[in-house]
């Protein structure tokens, strides 16, 4: 937090300054929040009222039916389930492969270790968009088009995750691994009982980060599925919008439904997200 200037201020000046701060903050908050607020309001209005002018900003008679329509008729229930399945599979895969690889790079010695580490870092240079042409062929050849595997498997490992966990494992004191070896701990037991618990902050950051990324994916689920039963929330939402303006409240309700799960997760794990985001940015 910034220190207030250490000059003498009369109480009234200080009060004025404070009021000014709150005014600025509140104006900014209204601007940032407005699109979300109006989405919630519109989801509770009938389409006729959404189109009427002046617009309604406070729904006095909320119509909740749009949520049922989005959930059932709009298939949001199915899309949400698909998103959860794919996202959990991707997140779990990313965490496990990152722990394995991070452990190998931090605690084990083997030929070509440095080369392999560079290979892991090199994956960070290739945006996924660059690989879609062939990945589509690969997924087709494997018979994975329109399947959960096709949506999840290409993302089960990331160079970022391996790097993050390796860095955390390198902080584990050497004495601990020596002591564990004396106690007859094998590598697997040491990894699960000692290293992973000590690297929990990094692993938590990776989990939140992976979850968010997987949940928000758009290009790949659009390319790799056609069957409505396999569509994820993001693509489902696009389809919900494509319906006519008579059901515009349902589209707004769909948007709210798509945001709720991730909003809950973020509120619970905000701290970890910040750590994951700033891992590369803010340092010394």
């Amino acid at each position, binding site marked *: *937090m*910034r*220190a207030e*200037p*250490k000059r003498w201020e009369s109480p009234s000046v200080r009060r004025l300054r404070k009021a000014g*701060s709150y005014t*600025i*903050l509140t104006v*900014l*908050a209204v601007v*940032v929040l407005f*699109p979300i607020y*109006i989405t919630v309001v*519109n989801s509770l209005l009938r*389409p006729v009222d*959404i*189109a009427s002018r002046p617009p309604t900003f406070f729904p006095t008679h909320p119509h909740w039916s749009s949520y049922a329509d989005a959930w059932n008729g709009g298939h949001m229930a199915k899309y949400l389930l698909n998103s959860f399945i794919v996202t959990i599979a991707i997140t779990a895969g990313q965490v496990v*492969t990152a722990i394995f690889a991070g*452990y*190998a790079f931090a605690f*084990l*010695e*083997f*030929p070509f*270790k440095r080369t392999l580490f560079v*290979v892991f870092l090199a994956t*960070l*240079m*290739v*945006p996924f*968009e*660059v*690989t*879609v*042409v*062939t*990945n589509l062929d*690969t997924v087709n050849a494997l018979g994975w088009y329109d399947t959960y595997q096709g949506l999840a*498997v*290409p993302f*089960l*490992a990331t*160079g970022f995750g*391996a790097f993050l966990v390796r860095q955390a494992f390198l902080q584990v004191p050497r004495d601990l691994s020596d002591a564990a070896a004396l106690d007859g701990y094998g590598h697997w037991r040491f990894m699960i009982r000692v290293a992973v618990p000590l690297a929990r902050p990094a692993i938590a950051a990776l989990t939140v980060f992976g979850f968010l990324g997987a949940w*928000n994916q*758009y*290009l790949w689920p659009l390319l790799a599925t056609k069957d409505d039963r396999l569509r994820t929330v993001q693509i489902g939402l*696009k389809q919900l919008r494509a319906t006519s*303006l008579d059901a*515009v409240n349902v589209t707004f309700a*769909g*948007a709210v439904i*798509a*945001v709720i799960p991730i909003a809950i997760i*973020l509120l619970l794990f*905000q701290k970890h*997200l*910040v750590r994951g985001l700033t891992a590369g*940015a*803010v340092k010394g």
Partner: protein
Amino acid sequence: MVTNSRAQRRRREASLGYLLLLPAVTVFAVFIFYPFLRNFQLGFYLNPPFPNLPKRWVGFDQYRDILGSDSFVDSLKTTIAFAFLTVPAGIALGMALAVAANRKLKGIGIYRTIFSSTVATSVAVAAVIFSMLFNPIVGLLPWLGVNPTPPIIENPDLALGAVALVTVWQTLGLTFILLSAGLQAIPEDLYEAAALDGAGATTRFWRVTLPMLSPTLFFAVVIGSIHAFQSFGQIDIITNGGPFKRTNVLTYSIYSELTTANHAANPGKAAVLAIALFVITLGLTLIQMRVLERRVHYAR
């Protein structure tokens, strides 16, 4: 005997190491390195205009034709314009939020949560919401007097700006979190020292905050640019690359060559475009690494 068992142990350790790397390496090999390299090969073949005809080896001709074509140059210009519309505005706004929230006030936590709230939205959610708000019948912008003909998202002069606005809003939460963390890492005594020297709030911002924040700002610029060059969802949802290809950014043009809605899929062309996208991203990453390296050097 001792050396023998040590060699054995070393061999066991090595095989465990390879075993642990195997899952990640398999994913990387199949879904990153192989497709990356195959792009170059695909680029050598010209795909026929109709499916089921053989493709033809044309070597570097296809690279030259595509990368020199007006449609590629236009797409590249659009992508660069999009980056210029989104990155500076996004960082300026994120900075404003971060500075405003960087005070000791009662209830500041609520404001911080609100400022980071757009993290909960995805590109698709933001695009769907805003495309409704832009709509001339149900939208609010027309009611506010912003009602051009043709409507915003069908308007060749405004569509890219509209998509950029959506992007700035959607990424605002991330930018805010990133810059806030940077601001909080600035030692307080620097401000105190500056205040003692008689520096006012404005001077402190330009002389203390900005220089100290420059590494974070730089990181935000690079990440923002890379993101801008990979933007896809908002364009697919709001404009479909139109009107008149005015929002046909690079990633959208790759996608268009892969979907068979209007014509036969053209993987050869998509591959060449993907290589171009890779080269641009690589350039941005290398610039980032160069500058970061220099910063670390100076700090010593």
